[in-house]
């Protein structure tokens, strides 16, 4: 059964990719990309990577799609120029050659699901066996993410922080009138239903984001996913009720504050453990026992990640949405 699901999903994925190449209407391309993300997320789930699947679903099908649509909305032309027929051959040759080399490379890869393969034999067994006693966190992915490889994650959070600032530099310059809200859209009757449904749904999404954030130690979830889901709730709000209304709830200054606050919490936990006599980001010294200290540290770090990811995603969306149509 697993194999059937696996193979059919992979085939769907390949078909969707071909569709993305062949269709020239960019709007359709982006919608196919949403399907592509959903499919790959489902595939990750069937391959036991639940945290990754959660992230990919929220990020790929949610945020990426919304951002691509926003880019397209700023663009009048939704059709790609028909590519030159004669220029196909060189790219095709390059791609086929590279593909052939890569397929040759897979000959040496272990069989799918082989428990004795190289990736399974080095550091991973240590994580799997020791994570629960050393950190007290049942979700091994969270333990590795926030504790064992905390420094790496700090780097990733800084990358996201930087990307947020860069997008703001590129697109944040022009201010819109914040009083321009969605009120004038009331004449479009579809909005009544959407508004009421959104009013019901948005609190549920926010609540669920908090659940994902704080249940991340015990089940699939954590700061990255929670931040993205929370920002998706606000994005839904601004899509239905207007950008002005959303910016009145979370002004840009607050977002900027939150963006840096998250990174500060993360780095601050590291500094705190430094002052308490441990190494940077070694949470064991934060409390009397190692397990308790690790747990506190992981919770705080995940909180920092969640805040930064939430704020950056929302900053990026507002920057795109606040841009006038050219």
């Amino acid at each position: 059964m697993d194999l059937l699901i696996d193979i059919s999903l992979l085939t769907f994925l390949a078909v969707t990719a071909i569709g993305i190449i062949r269709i020239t209407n960019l709007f359709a391309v982006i919608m196919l990309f949403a399907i592509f993300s959903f499919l790959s997320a489902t595939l990750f789930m069937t391959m036991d990577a639940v945290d990754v699947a959660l992230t990919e679903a929220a990020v790929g099908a949610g945020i990426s799609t919304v951002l691509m649509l926003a880019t397209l909305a700023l663009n009048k032309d939704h059709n790609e120029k028909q590519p030159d027929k004669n220029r196909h051959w060189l790219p095709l040759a390059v791609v086929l050659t590279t593909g052939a080399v890569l397929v040759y490379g897979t000959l040496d890869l272990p069989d799918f699901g082989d428990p004795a393969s190289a990736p399974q034999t080095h550091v991973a067994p240590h994580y799997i066996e020791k994570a629960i006693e050393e950190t007290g966190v049942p979700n091994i992915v969270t333990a590795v993410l926030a504790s064992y490889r905390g420094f790496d994650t700090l780097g990733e959070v800084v990358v996201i922080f930087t990307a947020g600032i860069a997008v703001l530099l590129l697109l944040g310059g022009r201010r819109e009138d914040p009083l321009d809200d969605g009120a004038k859209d009331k004449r479009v009757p579809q909005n009544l239903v959407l508004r009421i449904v959104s009013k019901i749904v948005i609190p549920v999404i926010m609540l669920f984001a908090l659940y994902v954030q704080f249940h991340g130690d015990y089940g699939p979830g954590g700061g990255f996913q929670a931040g993205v889901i929370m920002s998706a709730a606000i994005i839904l709000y601004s899509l239905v009720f207007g950008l002005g209304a959303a910016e009145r709830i979370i002004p840009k200054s607050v977002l900027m504050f939150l963006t840096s606050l998250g990174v500060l919490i993360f780095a601050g936990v590291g500094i705190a453990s430094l002052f308490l006599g441990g190494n940077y980001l070694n949470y064991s010294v934060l409390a009397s026992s190692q397990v308790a200290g690790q747990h506190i540290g992981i919770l705080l770090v995940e909180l920092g990640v969640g805040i930064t990811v939430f704020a950056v995603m929302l900053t990026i969306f507002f920057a795109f949405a606040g841009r006038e149509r050219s």
Partner: protein
Amino acid sequence: MYAVAIVAILVTLSLALARALMGPTVFDRIAAINMFGTKTVLLIAVFSFLTGRLDLLDMALVYAMINFISVVAVLRLFSHKDFHSPAENNVISVKVRRRWF
């Protein structure tokens, strides 16, 4: 029995995917995506019962949420004029608002 449901859902997914790939109007594609998303939620729910891993139900919920958000985004981020693929010519022109909110 779960297997039957999963196979049925997979068949549904493939047909919806075909509609999303062919769909003459953009609306057809959006409808297909909506259907695809809903069926994916069901697939995950059934899969979680099949394998007995009930914490996957959280993921089904996330999928349902994201699916709704992306459909709303598709509908709202486009002025009505843009919805027509070039195949259609009987476009009744609708005044396009300059901003999209």
